[in-house]
Every structure is written in structure tokens, then in C-alpha cells.
């Protein structure tokens, strides 16, 4: 985030201990921004939790879906900062969802937090072998290879009965750290878990975007040749981004399945992947908050359109997307993030 830190604070708390003159506005300080960011995140989380308590059930469910799906798009944004657009994140999203469903149904493991983590790890394990390969591709070929892989997964999921076949799995209500969730408040508690994880992921990704790796990722997008000549590996940067995106998608998949109660092969279908990309494009790669706002927009359009103007939600999304591409190429995040920082 582009906060300009207080010069007095900088001079007083320079990491090297030396007196740093009130430096350029671009100077950051490790401790200051770190705690400020976390404080903001906690405040936002508290606000959302309070709202969730009073919102009607359908709204907290919508927000839960928005947060869970938003996690996948968050990972995509990380990849887009490196200049590639993945059209197959459904693969890792499904990996997270199916891992959760399988652990719950076949092994009787019901803890929501554990299942979420397991989903992330499963997605990571699935993505890792492909990361070095995909790191060498750009543009259309990156997009179509990720698409192909996700469709291979779809094909497998549809036909393998051990994995539920075309119907998928139902998942019962999870427990939370040993505690059985009461019927009344199960939805709200899963909402809390989802937005909590989403907030943590958002803070982590923001840190990653502002890190040295994050900056080099932006450089790879613009001029890979120079990055190599300067001594860093563009391939390694992209592989890492891919794996991080997979983990995000995996925990997103797990959380969505826990609240939805169901997982199916469609999670890995190209249209699902397309929706995640839509949210990422709508959000832009400046602001992490924008990703979740955009994801909420998608859910709202989908719900309201189904209720009031049937058969128009895709039309609305298509028009939205064209509008953003043409007039807001940096996404809605650019509306509130100053131009200078990425």
C-alpha cells in the first residue's frame, strides 16, 4: 500500500540504526508498515465479523463464497504481475475441494482448519511438478497449457467413480478445532473462518507483492532478458508464483467446499477457471482488497441476476469485462491506488 510513512518515524526507527535523512517518499520501513498493515487487516476483519452477525443468512453465505473464490483470484493476480494469465486454476481449486471432500468422507477427518490446510497442501503438491515446466511459457501458450491441464483433471474427475464421478461428493458439516458446530450458527462460523483465512492470505500476499521477489516479478513481466542479465532467474520467479497461486486456490477450494457442502468435477472446468480470471482482471493487480471486492461483485451479479433478470448474468459479466478492459485496464484497484506503486 502506498502509505507515506512519517519522516520522524523513519529517522527514529531506521533498520540499520544509522540516521537516515527523511528519505524519498518511496522509502519504507519494515516495522512501521508491517504492524500498520496487520492492524488495518484486523480492524477490517472485526468489522466484517460484526456485519456477518447481523446480516441475513443468504448474505453471509454470499460473502463466504466471495471470499473463498476470491482466494483463487488472488493467486491469479500474483501470476498476472509476472505477465501471464492462467486459464486453468480450476485444476488446483478442484484439488483443494476434492482433498477436503475425500479426507472428510474417506478418512473421517472433520476439522475445518485442518481440512483447509490440507486443501492448500494438496493443491501445492499437484501444482509443484508442473511449475518448472509452466515457468517457461508465456502468453497464449501458458494460458492454453494451464487450460489443457485443468481439462485433463476434469476428464479424470468425471469418469473416476472413486472420485465421485460426474456427481461429485457431498460433504457434511465440519467441526472446528474439536468443537461440533451448532446448527444455528454453523454458517456464520464458517463465514468467520473463511474471511479470517482470506484476510490472512491478503496480508501475506500484499507482503509478497511488496517484497524483493514481488518487485522482480514485475520486472519479469516487462523485460525478462534484463532480469537474467542482472543475475536473477525469471523461470524460478514464475515457478514460485505458480506454486503460491496453487496454494491460495487450494485453500479457497477447501473453504468453498466446506460451506457449500458439495464438490464436483465442474470445479475444474474451463468456465470456472474463466470466472476466476474475470475477477482478477476486474480487480487489477494493484490492490489486494480489490480482488475480494471484485469477487463480491461477481457473486452479487450472479445472485441478483438469477433472481430478477434470468439469463442475464453472463451478459452483465461480459459487458463489465469489456468495460474494464477498455476503460480501466488496471482494474478497479486502480481507482483507489496511487499510480506510482504496484
Amino acid at each position, binding site marked *: 500500500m502506498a502509505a507515506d510513512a512519517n519522516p520522524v518515524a523513519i529517522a527514529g526507527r531506521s533498520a540499520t540504526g544509522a540516521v537516515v535523512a527523511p528519505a*524519498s517518499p518511496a522509502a*519504507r520501513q519494515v516495522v512501521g508498515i508491517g504492524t500498520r498493515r496487520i492492524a488495518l487487516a484486523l480492524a477490517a476483519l472485526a468489522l466484517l465479523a460484526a456485519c456477518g452477525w447481523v446480516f441475513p443468512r443468504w448474505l453471509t453465505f454470499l460473502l463466504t463464497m466471495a471470499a473463498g473464490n476470491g482466494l483463487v483470484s488472488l493467486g491469479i493476480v500474483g501470476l498476472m504481475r509476472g505477465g501471464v494469465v492462467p486459464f486453468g486454476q480450476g485444476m488446483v481449486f478442484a484439488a483443494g475441494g476434492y482433498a477436503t471432500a475425500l479426507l472428510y468422507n474417506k478418512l473421517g477427518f472433520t476439522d475445518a482448519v485442518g481440512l483447509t490446510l490440507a486443501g492448500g497442501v494438496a493443491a501445492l503438491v499437484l501444482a509443484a511438478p508442473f511449475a518448472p515446466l509452466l515457468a517457461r511459457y508465456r502468453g497464449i501458450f501458458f494460458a492454453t497449457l494451464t487450460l489443457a491441464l485443468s481439462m485433463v483433471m476434469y476428464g479424470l474427475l468425471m469418469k473416476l467413480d472413486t472420485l465421485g464421478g460426474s456427481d461429485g461428493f457431498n460433504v457434511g458439516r465440519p467441526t472446528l478445532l474439536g468443537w461440533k458446530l451448532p446448527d444455528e450458527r454453523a454458517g456464520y462460523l464458517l463465514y468467520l473462518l473463511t474471511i479470517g483465512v482470506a484476510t490472512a492470505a491478503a496480508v501475506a500476499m500484499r507482503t509478497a507483492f511488496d517484497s*524483493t*521477489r*514481488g518487485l*522482480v516479478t514485475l520486472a519479469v513481466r516487462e523485460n525478462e532478458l534484463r532480469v537474467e542479465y542482472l*543475475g536473477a532467474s525469471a523461470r524460478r520467479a514464475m515457478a514460485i508464483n505458480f506454486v503460491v497461486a496453487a496454494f491460495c486456490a487450494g485453500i479457497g477450494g477447501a473453504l468453498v467446499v466446506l460451506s457449500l457442502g458439495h464438490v464436483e468435477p465442474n470445479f475444474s472446468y474451463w468456465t470456472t477457471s474463466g470466472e476466476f480470471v474475470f475477477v482478477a482482471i476486474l480487480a487489477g493487480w494493484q490492490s489486494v482488497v480489490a480482488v475480494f471486492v471484485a469477487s463480491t461483485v461477481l457473486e452479487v451479479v450472479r445472485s441478483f441476476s438469477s433472481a430478477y433478470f434470468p439469463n442475464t448474468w453472463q451478459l452483465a459479466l461480459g459487458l463489465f469485462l469489456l468495460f474494464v478492459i477498455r476503460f480501466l485496464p488496471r482494474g478497479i484497484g486502480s481507482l483507489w491506488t496511487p499510480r506510482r506503486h504496484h
Partner: protein
Amino acid sequence: MSLLVAEGLNKRFGAVVAAGDVAVAFDAGERVSLIGSNGAGKTTFVNMITGYLKPDAGRIVFDGRDITALAPRAITHLGVARSFQIPQLYGDLSVLDNMLVANACHDESLSLRLPAHRPDAVERAERLLERFRLLDHRNRRVAGLAGGVRKLLDIAMALTGSPRLLLLDEPTSGVSADEKFPLMDTVMAALGHDDATCVLFVEHDMEVVGRYASRVVAFYAGRVVADGAPGEALAADAVRRYVTGELLAE
């Protein structure tokens, strides 16, 4: 011992001989200009040294180590850096960010947690920018900068990590005539801090060559046709015929 030794370098592109038995050696601290008309093999030579091209035959030894087969990244980490004829920059980022990227790439410790804009990194970047008189531009977007400034930034980025061998590919090309000397003055002054750096610069402008080089290596058709102090090299027949064009049609 010489810092860089090239022996028997050969490279062909089909029928074109880009390098024919090139053998030269350079010592620390030298300021050498590589001259030759277009297609003479200067850039091929630079590309082979930096690892971008592999020679068909021959060896390149840097600081006693055979670097012929190494990747560009590995060669960079050994202390060889280059700038580009057409500046290779990150247009969308600020000048400061470009320098931060250069520094980060060079340190092998890229991290997902270490803030890119932490005070010590910014300070280090700004110091180098200052040596190149670029500090005033630090927050400006690179794509909007003038040619001369972009050239300086391109060279400044090559200097992260204090390379022992610096290759400048046509540092004054694309820069207006009255800006050439100030640009080279700035570069040489910035380098002044590192006397041990050996600088090879490809150059077409003989005035620049005469003023800043202590040694001249001339290329023609992939071969070295002259190698010596500017006074002698530029007066050599081969150079006058094939490079400066003073002796035509003989």
C-alpha cells in the same frame, strides 16, 4: 594475470563469419574501446563474453576460470556486467524501482518477505543513482524519460554489485552529439570509484574513442585487425581502410 582472456574464438552464422580466431586479453583497470563497422563482430564478441552466445570453438577465461559454457546469470554473478545498445529497462516502474530490481537480482537472496523498499536497499540504490546524476529522476516513470537519461540508467544498473568487467554496448548511440561527452564524463566519473574495473566499450564515434579509451581493439569481418593505444591503432592501415573509412578503394 589477465582478467579476461579470449582464445581462438570462432562463431559462424551460416556463411557469415562473426568471429574468426579472435584472441585478446584484458587486464584489470583498462579502458578499452572496441571499434569496427556494423557486422564486424563486436557485438558478437560481447555476447559471447556475457554468455548469451556460445562460440563454435575457443575459450573464454575470466579471472582464471573458464566461463565459455556458463549461462549469462552465472557469468553475471562472477563479476561481469553489460549495458545495452537499446536500453533494457522496466518502463512501467520508476527509476528507483529499476535500480532496486537491479540490486535485488544481483543479490542471490530474493525473498517473499523482505520488503523491496526497505531503507537500506533504497539508500544503496540512491547512492548509485547519485553517482550517475539520476537521483532527481528517482520517482519518475522510466518510459517517460529522455534517451540520454535512459542510457545512463541502463549503465547504472549494470554497475550493481561492482562488476570487475563491464561491457558497454554503444553507450553513446542514440544520444545527441552535444550530449555524448557529458554522458561519458558522468559514466567515467561514476566508475572512478572502482579503479580496478576493466571497461570495454563498443563505440562508433572516434572522438569518444580517442578521449576515453586507453586502448583500442578493432574488428573487421570477425577478426581483430588492430590492438593498441588509440594513437597507433587509429592510424593503422587496416583500421583506416575498414573502420574509419579514410582509405577507400585501394
